[in-house]
């Protein structure tokens, strides 16, 4: 097993994200760590997965060179389809997208996400960039995975503003609201991996990353978090996975020590 000094937290999170993708699934790919998670899955255990990018790109093969944004030209070269956002969103709205990934700034016990207004919109303290496609992915994919930094101010009892709905207020809320399907299936944070109780739809701590304690997770969570029994340790990235991540992020922009995501 690799010692902790051999990989970064971001690399561990990317590896965890990639394991959420099954082969042959249709994946709506987001920015940053989610994009790397898809590329890792596509180059390891899910070689026949398909990537959909909201700006109008469908890819069934890896881009010939690493990219930092989904609009970088290598991501367009030999795409399976270059088209419109409406086409990508049509696939999503019809229910053809198996899994999507979104980043969060603030999340609550039912997996609702805020990436718009910290403090609420009337008394906004911090304005964040907003939804982009995140609201659509959280509403319309068969399942979505949330990736974010784990801090007490971010893990709150109730988000200040719902940009991207999770399970709302709990059991059957999505059905009552009119959402056709879906909901978050996992939350991957800088401390652990979380799932949702099938009945209550509350977030449950599933695994903690190497070197993290359960107490540390509790201290950084703003509600009385439930823990799975047994509690696992998040698998660390394998050497092959690390080599792949370095291939897709050669400069370490997203996953290197002191990278955009690490800092």
């Amino acid at each position: 097993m690799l010692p902790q000094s051999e990989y970064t937290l971001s690399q561990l999170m990317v590896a965890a994200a990639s394991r959420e993708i099954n082969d042959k699934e249709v994946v709506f790919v987001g920015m940053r760590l989610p994009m790397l998670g898809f590329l890792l899955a596509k180059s390891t255990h899910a070689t026949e997965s398909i990537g959909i990018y909201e700006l109008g790109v469908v890819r069934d093969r890896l881009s010939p060179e690493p990219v930092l944004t989904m609009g970088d030209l290598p991501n367009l070269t030999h795409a399976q389809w270059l088209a419109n956002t409406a086409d990508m969103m049509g696939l999503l709205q019809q229910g053809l997208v198996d899994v999507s990934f979104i980043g969060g700034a603030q999340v609550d016990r039912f997996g609702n996400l805020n990436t718009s207004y910290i403090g609420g919109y009337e008394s906004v303290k911090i304005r964040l960039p907003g939804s982009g496609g995140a609201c659509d992915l959280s509403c319309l994919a068969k399942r979505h995975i949330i990736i974010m930094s784990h801090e007490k101010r971010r893990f709150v009892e109730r988000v200040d503003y719902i940009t991207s709905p999770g399970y709302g207020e709990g059991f059957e809320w999505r059905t009552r609201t009119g959402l056709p399907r879906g909901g978050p299936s996992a939350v991957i944070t800088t401390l652990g991996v979380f799932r949702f109780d099938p009945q209550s739809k509350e977030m449950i701590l599933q695994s903690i990353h190497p070197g993290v304690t359960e107490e540390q997770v509790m201290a950084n969570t703003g509600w009385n978090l439930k823990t799975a029994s047994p509690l696992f340790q998040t698998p660390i990235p394998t050497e092959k996975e690390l080599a792949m991540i370095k291939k897709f992020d050669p400069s370490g922009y997203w996953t290197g020590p002191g990278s955009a995501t690490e800092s």
Partner: protein
Amino acid sequence: MSVSKLTTLSEGIDRLVSDGSSVAIGMAQETLIPFFAGHEIIRRKKRNLTLIGPISDILFDQLIGGNCVEQICAGWVGNVITGSCYNFRRAVENKSLKMEDHSNLTLTMALFAGAMGVPFMPTRTALGSDLYQTNSGLKIMSCPFTGETLTAVSAIRPDTAIIHVQRSDPYGNAHIWGNLAIVKEACMASRNILITAEEIVDSEIISSDPNRVAVPGFKVSAVVHAPWGAYPSPVPGYYNRDHQAFIDYRNKSKTDTDFKKWQAIWVDSVPDSDAYMARIGIERMTALSITHHVVSASADFGY
């Protein structure tokens, strides 16, 4: 005989972007962002604009910093590879900017409704979200056929869409390729269209491949020759994205004073395309050039 719509950027912006008007810009998301045209809006000191776009990358932030903007109608405003943008943050947090918060799908539907000439489009997104609280153009509706709960998205008809393309003829028939995001919906929905193009070409080149035309030329109001006009965003077939420029912008726009210094260098002292290319510099232009060409097989449009 068609009349040439070729004009200068200043004339085009003066004519098509008046104070208080609504402008759709940055419709292809990360690619083909009309940065140079956006900078001309700042130079011409346009005021009280409504900006419409899915994600703007950093262009909306620059226009906000240039005091051009009263309202933003967008899915996402930030810097794609670094996160938040500072002029935008400051303006929302001190309540000097009005927001209509969209998702990328609701914005697409709003422009599609405008494009189709209907008052709204239904969608299944945004249900259960708070976008309804901060967007007057979203309402819950019940499907008249099935009774299902849906989101109704009110049509948007921008005064002007500004798009950057690879090549255009003088009459506004333009070829665009790559990912198209909501370019076509925005052009169809807008009252006026201003095209900036890497190259101005003969009409025969454009009509040899009509599938690649963005929108028929009769709907276009002005065409401007603007080589490197999307820099630092990428243009398929022409140049790659300059990531460092986006990182530099983040570092040089943290305060209003910093932004004004950035604006002086990259906007105020850049009067035309030649000056923009000189500012980018031959070294960067060479580094960003296309080195791996993938030319499509030709298609026969004959009879």
